[in-house]
């Protein structure tokens, strides 16, 4: 088993993307580091991609640019995030699935963060507004946001 940790900055950026485009689906890429020995992934940063149903050219360009950028920051692409258009929809739709497949070709064990719209809509939620789907057969577990790890 391995755990996924998410930095506050990454978490805030994911939600900021959702808050900016409340009526649109939002998708982005997760950057971070993987500690194989401890079996832990740390999501340090995110890059927002689109707020629609993207087509091939945009995604190919984005992935090419992000791969380059990640190298300069000594980070890996560790997964993607997605927020669905409809308020009560927490399913993994086609866009994050396709993106996940793309990422999995070159990076080990990417995860998918799904934004929980209804929790994100609350003024003072008492739980994280994201769900993390790890690689093993869509098993999902909640991530606890932790402060920047050393």
């Amino acid at each position, binding site marked *: 088993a391995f755990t996924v940790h998410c930095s506050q900055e990454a978490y805030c950026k994911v939600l900021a993307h959702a808050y900016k485009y409340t009526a649109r689906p939002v998708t982005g890429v997760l950057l971070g580091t993987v500690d194989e020995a401890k079996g832990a992934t740390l999501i340090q940063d995110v890059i927002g991609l689109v707020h*629609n*149903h993207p*087509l*091939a*050219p*945009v995604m*190919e*360009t984005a992935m090419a640019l992000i791969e380059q950028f990640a190298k300069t920051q000594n980070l890996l692409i560790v997964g993607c995030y997605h927020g669905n258009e*409809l308020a009560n*929809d927490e399913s993994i739709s*086609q866009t994050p699935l396709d993106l996940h497949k793309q990422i999995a070709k070159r990076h080990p064990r990417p995860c998918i963060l799904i934004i929980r719209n209804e929790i994100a809509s609350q003024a003072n939620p008492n739980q994280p507004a994201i769900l993390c789907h790890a690689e093993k057969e869509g098993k999902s577990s909640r991530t606890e946001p932790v402060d920047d790890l050393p």
Partner: protein
Amino acid sequence: ALTCSMATDIAQIDILKAKGPPRSFADSKAALDLIEASRLRDCSDLVLLHGLWLLKNYSRKLDTAQWRLFERVYIAALDNGDVEAAEWCLGKLKAKFSSRNTSETGSVRVAGLENMLVEQSGDWKQANDLYDQILQENHTITHSWKRRVAVAKASGNIDRAVDLLVEFLEQYPTDSSGWTELAELYISTKQFAFAKFCYEELILQHPENFLNHLCYAELLYTIKDYSLARQYFAQSIELSPGNNLRALYGLVLAAKNLVEKDSRL
């Protein structure tokens, strides 16, 4: 379409957002006129802020212009989830014009607005039936046509949304926003051939709009027609006022794929 003037509008609206709460009639009025003229959708928070302030403090000075403003602020309030403000605006509109939902001689337009409040509550069945009612009486109310599609989409029934939208477009084939929405619905369900048709309609009707060519090119690229995609990316670049980064990247990618295809032969 995003034009040069729209870029300046966006800059001006950013300045407005930074200015803070409304203070003068002239400034707020100018702000609202700017937003209406530029047709930018995501300024509903500004419309609500300035519009509501004007309506509450200057309704006599606004005179007959206040009714259109009530409608705009009502919709902006719904966009921002401010049900209280929405209900206040709706109350004023119903007092002045009376709604078709409650009175035989009432306004259909106000009835349509009232139904949007039902949408806000999430009662999709009720909202759909109310729009059905309006359309049964008067088949030409485009607002109700479109809201019915929105209700289908919001309740997760994409197939029904597509069917309703196709029916609408058969009667109103020049409605660009309808074709754009239909294309998006098709793309979201990976029905690329049908989406292609929608963009072709848009290009036929508005060949000067670089966005239509751009979206069409991206779709062609996605279904691997690199040669045609390259042409439409190029056309989009020619039509756009500059800085069309998406089309430039698309052009490079399409050309790259064409070269690779050739070199494999």
